[in-house]
Structure formats: structure tokens, C-alpha cells
């Protein structure tokens, strides 16, 4: 794809890899540009972030 605007597939890969390694500055910028214009990838990125936040706050709110 274009050097400036990665496609969903590449953005998806970057979003997933970004959870386990630090992305380079260029990768971050490419991802950010794509997310600004793509609702699908924005939703996906939010999903994996929420998943992470949820596991980290397990077992959840107090049962009171």
C-alpha cells in the first residue's frame, strides 16, 4: 500500500503487535493516520485495548 496510508490489514497487524512490542515511530505514525480515517480499525484497536484493561482489572468490581 501507499507509504503514507497503510491498509486495514497492515494496521491490524500493527495494532496487534503494538500490544507486545514497542512500535517504531514510523509504525506508530502510520497506524495513527490510518485509525483517524478508519472506523473498522478504530473499533478493533479499542476492542483489544478493552480486553487488556479488563484482564488487568480482573476479578472486577467488589461484590458489594
Amino acid at each position, binding site marked *: 500500500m501507499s507509504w503514507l496510508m497503510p491498509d486495514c*490489514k497492515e494496521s491490524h*497487524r500493527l495494532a496487534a503487535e503494538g500490544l*507486545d512490542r514497542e512500535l517504531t515511530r514510523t509504525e506508530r505514525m502510520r497506524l495513527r493516520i490510518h485509525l483517524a480515517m478508519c472506523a*473498522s480499525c478504530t473499533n478493533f484497536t479499542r476492542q483489544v485495548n*478493552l*480486553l487488556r484493561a479488563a484482564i488487568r*482489572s480482573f476479578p*472486577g468490581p467488589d461484590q458489594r
Partner: protein
Amino acid sequence: MVNTTTEANAPPNADFIRELTAMRPKLLSFARLQLRDSHAAEDAVQEALLAAMEQAHRFEGRSSLRTWVTTILRNRIIDHFRRGRREVQLDDEDGAEDLASFDGLFTEKGRFRERPGDWANDPEATLSERQFFEVLEACVTKLPAQTGRVFLMREWLELSTDEICHELGISSSNCWVILYRARMRLRECLELNWFGARR
């Protein structure tokens, strides 16, 4: 909040012990998911609860008791991994593979075939629902054993992928595939059983 004792050597009060005991089943189910070994899980939970009782005077009520004990348990489990490093069998379906499944999500032009659901109007609200965590736990339980374990090491114990590879003796590309697959499955499971049903 429970009124804990302030003296280091005084025994914790009855309410404190009662609350701790009530948490045991939940802690145990999580330790089992993580360790995949009920003896080790029993031990880890036992140790965590004893440590919590011993250190009751240090519990300041700033976080909830559950969060505090969970943190202690998490550290016990990390210790357990560090003590006995074992070779681990990968689940059959956990083996490395090309990411063909990855391609299935996208059109030839590299666009999503199906838009992922919108989950995060209000993440705080989701994370304050107890039922959500029950669904999440059920989804994690459904993961293949090794997948669930690697995923929880990464997300719950917050180990780096390097540490996980090292502890479990798996390659980093394997580790990455396992994590990716775990996330995709959990995403699907939560969409099906929680978010989709609430849209």
C-alpha cells in the same frame, strides 16, 4: 471497608478472615486457569491467603481487599513459574502456523470484510459490571490450555513476551501467534456473549 488490625503481630480480625475465605473459590479458579495444575493452584492460593493474613496490618484499604489479595496471588504465581521452569507441550492447535487465518479477515484490497463491533462507548461502565467479568472468565476458560496460559501470563501477570518465551521454552514467533489467536478468540467470545447482545 473492613477494619483491619494495626499491630503487626496481632491476629487479623474475624471479618477480615471471613472476607478472605469468601474469596478463595474465585482466586482458585483463576490460579487453575493460569497454572493448569490444581495442586499448584491450591498451594499458590493457600500461600497468598496466608500472606494476606500475616500482612493484614499492611492493608490500608486504599484498594479493595480483593485487588490487594489478587496482587499477592499474582506474585505467588510468578514465583511459581520462576522456580520450576518446565518444558511445555504446545496444544496441537497452538503450534506455529502461517497466519492464513489473518488473511481471512480481509478482502484482497486489504480492507476488513466485516467491521469489528463498537465496544468502547464507555469502557469504565463495562469494567464496573460484575457480570461482564463472569462472561470474560468463561471466555478465558474456553481457550485451549496453553493458549489461555500464555495469554494470562502476558495480560494478567504482565510478563513480557521475552520472559514468557524464556519461561515456557517457546519461540517468540510462536508466542506471538498464540497471543494473537487468544485475543481474536476472546474478542469473538465477548462480542457474541456480551457486546453483541447489548447493542
